[in-house]
C-alpha cells in the first residue's frame, strides 16, 4: 500500500452520503410525502375558504357551489396520503450486514426522492388551486355565469398534483431492497 497516494477517487459527497442509513432517507421521504402535501392542502383551503366566506356575505347563494374548490384542495392531501401509504409498504427491514449494500442505498434514495416529489408537487398544487378557488368565489359572487369558466382553470391547476403522484409512484417501483436470505 505504499507508493503514490490518491486522495480519494470517489467524490466527497459520496463518502458523506454512504454513512447515512437508507432508513433515514426512507423515513424522511415518507414524512415529507404526507406532511408537505397536507401543508399544501391546508394552505389552499384557508385561502379559498376565507375568500368564499367573505364573498358570501352579500351573495349567500355561492356557498354550496364553491365548496368544490375546497374539495379540490382536499384531494391534494388525499394524494399525499395514498403515496405515503404506498411508500411505507415499500419499506422493508434488511439484515444488518446488508444495510449499506448498493441495493439498499438505492432503495432508500428512491423512497426519499419519491416523497420529495409528491410532497412538493402537492404543496404547489394546493397553493395554486387555493388561489384560483378564491378568485372563483369572488367572481361568482358578482356574476354567476363565471363559476364554470373559472373552474376550468382550477382543473388545470389540480393536474399538477397528479403529475407528482404519477412520477412518485413510478419512482417507488425502484425501491427494491436486497433479498432477506443472502
Amino acid at each position, binding site marked *: *500500500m*505504499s*507508493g503514490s*497516494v*490518491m*486522495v*480519494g*477517487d*470517489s*467524490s466527497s*459527497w*459520496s*463518502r458523506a*452520503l*454512504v454513512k447515512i442509513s437508507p432508513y433515514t432517507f426512507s423515513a424522511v421521504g415518507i414524512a415529507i410525502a404526507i406532511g408537505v402535501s397536507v401543508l399544501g392542502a391546508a394552505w389552499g383551503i384557508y385561502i379559498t375558504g376565507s375568500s368564499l366566506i367573505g364573498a358570501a356575505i352579500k351573495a349567500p347563494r355561492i356557498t354550496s357551489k364553491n365548496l368544490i374548490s375546497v374539495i379540490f384542495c382536499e384531494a391534494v392531501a388525499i394524494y399525499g396520503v395514498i403515496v405515503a401509504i404506498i411508500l411505507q409498504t415499500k419499506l422493508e427491514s434488511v439484515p444488518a450486514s446488508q444495510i*449499506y449494500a*448498493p*441495493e439498499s*442505498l*438505492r432503495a432508500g*434514495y*428512491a423512497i*426519499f*426522492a*419519491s416523497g*420529495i*416529489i409528491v410532497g*412538493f*408537487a402537492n404543496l*404547489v*398544487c394546493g*397553493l*395554486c388551486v387555493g*388561489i*384560483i378557488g378564491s*378568485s*372563483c368565489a*369572488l*367572481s361568482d359572487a*358578482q*356574476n354567476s*355565469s*363565471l363559476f364554470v*369558466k*373559472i373552474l*376550468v*382553470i*382550477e382543473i*388545470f*391547476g389540480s*393536474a*399538477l398534483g397528479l*403529475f*407528482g403522484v*404519477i*412520477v412518485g409512484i*413510478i*419512482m417507488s417501483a*425502484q425501491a427494491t431492497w436486497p433479498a432477506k436470505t443472502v
Partner: protein
Amino acid sequence: MNNDVFFRYGVVCEPRPITLVLLSFYSRGATWKLPFPDHLLTVPYHPKIDGTRLCDKEEGKAWRSLNPRNLPSSKRICDQIPQFLMASGFSGDETAPFFGFLGAAAALVFSCMGAAYGTAKSGVGVASMGVMRPELVMKSIVPVVMAGVLGIYGLIIAVIISTGINPKAKSYYLFDGYAHLSSGLACGLAGLSAGMAIGIVGDAGVRANAQQPKLFVGMILILIFAEALALYGLIVGIILSSRAGQSRAD
C-alpha cells in the same frame, strides 16, 4: 491475527494528550480490527505509552513526531483511507442513484412550481376581468394552458430519468448520477422561471385584453417567448440525460 492492532496505535492522527488519556482506557487489552496493514501504523515514539519520562524538550519532540503533518504521506492514515476504502470496493458509485433520483425530483418539483405560479397568477387575472367581460373568459384561458404545459415538460424529464436508473440492467456510475441531476435541474429551474414569466404576462395581458381587444395577439406573442424558455430547458435536459448512458468508455 495479523491485522489485530491495539487501538492506541491507531491514534496517529490524534496526538492531543487529553484524547490519549481518554482512549487509554480502551487500550487495556482491546483490539481494533482495521482494514489496513500494520506497517503504516509504526509510531516512532509514544511518550505516554512507553512509560519513560524524558526532559521536556525531548518529550515535546516525541509528541511532535506523532503529528501527521510531520509524517511522510505514505505513512499518514488520513491520506491512505481513500485507498483502503477503494481496496474494500467503495468507489462512490453506490451513492450515484441519490443524485439521479434527486434530478428527477428537481425536474418535476420546480416545473410544477412554475406551472402553479403561472396558473394561479393568470387565473386571478381572468377571474377579475371576467366580472366585467364574461364573454372573453374562454379566450383568456390561453395563459393557463401554457402554464400547464410546463408541468408536462417536468413530467417528461422526470420519467426519462427515473426509468434510466436501473443498476440491475446497466451499471450506474457517478457520472450517470450527476448527468441526471444536471438534466433535472436544468429542466426544472427553466420551467420555474418560465412559469413566473407566463403568470405575470398572462395576468397583465388578460386584464388589458378586456379593455383593448387588439392586444390579444400581442399577449399571445409574449407568452410564446416565455414558453420558449421552458422549451430550452427541456432540450438541454434531454441532451444531458442522454449523456447518462455514456460513462466509463473503458
